[in-house]
């Protein structure tokens, strides 16, 4: 089975006053249809930039400098601007973090959706609205016909995020990228949405990249997990592998930091130091300064170590379980 999304060696750089910043560094992963891939990492690790790079939505001063993004076997990076635009929304869709900001506040939900429908499918406005209504139904919005007439601010946060997801679903894309799609929502609403997303992936067979910094969310939602650190994917594997037997010291450190896994009141094992600034990364393994296992060898580029499909970028991977 070919992967719905296959990212190979994706590299994105930003030009800043401090010099070049490689926000996404040689990132590779693949997602099969119907599966959910969780992309986790701390703030600034390059998750969002990865998402935008896949869709070719990086603006100056940034630039995708290398790699390939294959969607159903087509390399998006080889396409002309116009062809790439036609792929967006139709083959690859994206959902953003803040549902208040991603919908145009002054346009009715229906109008926005109809616009998104008609850009890829020639149909009348009323047909487009009907299509949109169905999409809203799919994501579990009650009385969707009325919602189409509403303005975004008249909907609750959860409702808005559902609308955004429905818009992503309009053209039954092969790939959906969701960037922190539930971070801004309340826990109870987040629960509702996560349940629905799981169902969607199973039902529609779309490959979903779920970007989040919340390990708990990926561990309960995703089939596969990629852990990002300083622009690189440092560990990749199935959810069970990564959560149950992390092999990268960073992944281990992250999991150890979660209070839920420790007895209340005990001190948490902590990763020392702070998340690095991309413009000031050390030589070799970027995690070296915070890593308890680091040696001089870590000043060289870490190798990719793959075992049972669980890949890890480290000189001294943990043995796992």
């Amino acid at each position, binding site marked *: 089975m070919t992967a719905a999304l296959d990212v190979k060696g994706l590299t994105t750089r930003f030009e800043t006053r401090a010099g070049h910043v490689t926000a996404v560094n040689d990132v590779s992963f693949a997602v099969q249809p119907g599966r959910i891939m969780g992309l986790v990492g*701390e*703030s600034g690790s390059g998750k969002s930039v990865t998402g935008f790079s896949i869709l070719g939505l990086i603006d100056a001063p940034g630039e995708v400098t290398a790699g390939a993004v294959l969607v159903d076997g087509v390399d998006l990076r080889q396409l002309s601007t116009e062809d790439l635009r036609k792929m967006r929304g139709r083959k690859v869709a994206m959902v953003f973090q803040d549902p208040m900001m991603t919908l145009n506040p002054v346009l009715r939900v229906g109008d926005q959706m109809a616009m998104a429908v008609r850009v890829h499918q020639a149909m009348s406005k009323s047909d487009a609205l009907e299509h949109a209504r169905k999409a809203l139904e799919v994501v579990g919005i009650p009385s969707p016909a009325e919602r189409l007439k509403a303005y975004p601010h008249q909907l*609750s946060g*959860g*409702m808005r995020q559902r609308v955004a997801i429905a818009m992503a679903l309009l053209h039954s894309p092969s790939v959906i990228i969701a960037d922190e799609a539930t971070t801004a929502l*309340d*826990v*109870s*609403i*987040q*629960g*509702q949405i*996560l*349940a629905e997303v*799981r169902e969607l992936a199973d039902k529609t067979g779309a490959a979903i990249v779920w970007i989040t*910094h*919340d*390990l*708990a*969310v990926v*561990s*309960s*939602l*995703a*089939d596969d997990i990629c852990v990002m650190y300083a622009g690189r994917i440092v560990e990749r594997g199935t*959810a069970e592998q990564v*959560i*149950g037997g992390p092999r990268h010291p960073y992944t281990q*450190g*992250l*999991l*150890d*930091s*979660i*209070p*839920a*896994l*420790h007895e*209340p*009141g005990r*001190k*948490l*094992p*902590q*990763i*020392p130091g*702070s*998340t690095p600034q991309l413009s000031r990364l050390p030589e070799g393994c970027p995690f070296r300064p915070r890593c308890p296992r680091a040696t001089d060898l870590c000043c060289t580029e870490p190798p990719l170590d793959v075992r049972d499909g669980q890949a890890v970028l480290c000189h001294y991977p943990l043995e796992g379980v």
Partner: protein
Amino acid sequence: MTDPILKIDTVSKRFTRRPGLAERLAGKFTGGGKPVTVHALTDVSLEVAKGEVLGIVGESGCGKSTLGRVIAGIHAPTSGSVTLNGQPIADQRGGTIHKRTTQVQMIHQDPFASLNPRMKVGETLAEGPRYHGIIPADQVRTRVRALLEQVGLEAAYADRLPHQFSGGQRQRIAIARALAMQPEVLVLDEAVASLDVSIQAQVLNLFMDLRHDLGLTALFISHDLSVVRHVCDRVAIMYLGRLVELAPADQLYADPRHPYTRALFASIPTVGTGRGRFEAIKGEIPSPIAPPPGCAFHPRCPFAGSRCRTEVPRLTAAGPVRTVACHLNDGGVDMQKGAA
């Protein structure tokens, strides 16, 4: 339980937007122009013992921060009182705060907004104590250095501006600023919510160390149940401005009594529990401007009965040290009003 150091007695807080003169005049003709009231807190009573850390949990808009602000004396309660060591610190006297205190200090959520971006860290730490004469003027510098070291920063950082620090470091500074006032009670309003997990662990550890060393009393506001469980002795669950359950952390987590608490636990993803086991609470959070009658949770509650729609449940004992506000715990849900 030892004697409570902080006592919150049936505190309510309403925010009212009063219409202007023109609106009121216009309202005479059209019937509009009436004040809009947000019921941010309704009849909240709590006691906190010395050395205790009380967790406050609830969804967005349920009044957690408002409670913290009332305790810190930033808002005057609309009714009820807050006493510290038996002395009122926030009281409602004609709508103004009767006495302010340095005894309660607050730590805010966003470390990027909670420090004055144009004031050196040292100055930020020093100005409160200096103004209130907590430290003699000639000792301020040493004290600032000591504070910085106490929260794990280099003393030399005193001359830097906040933007030169990372989020975790800033949160340490915020903690140091609160400690500088030598408070009796700390209020941490989502103090770790905006930090990355690895940094969050550092700050939690710092908090626990300080608590251990200084015997801090604290209100720990959060929506993250696992963090709360980790650092708190007791936990209060709030829903739409009301306290719905209050219990020691271990008991609450082992056996949540209120349907809302239970639903909350069920809908929160946790690491290691495996994939896709959510029992999400259905429905939306109601508006605090027009809270539902009776039990505020009844529209979303799977157990709601007719009584829940009309009668506000009282906090009742559900064990030796825990209380819950639910009719299920207080005689069942289907009784008619008037029986209570």
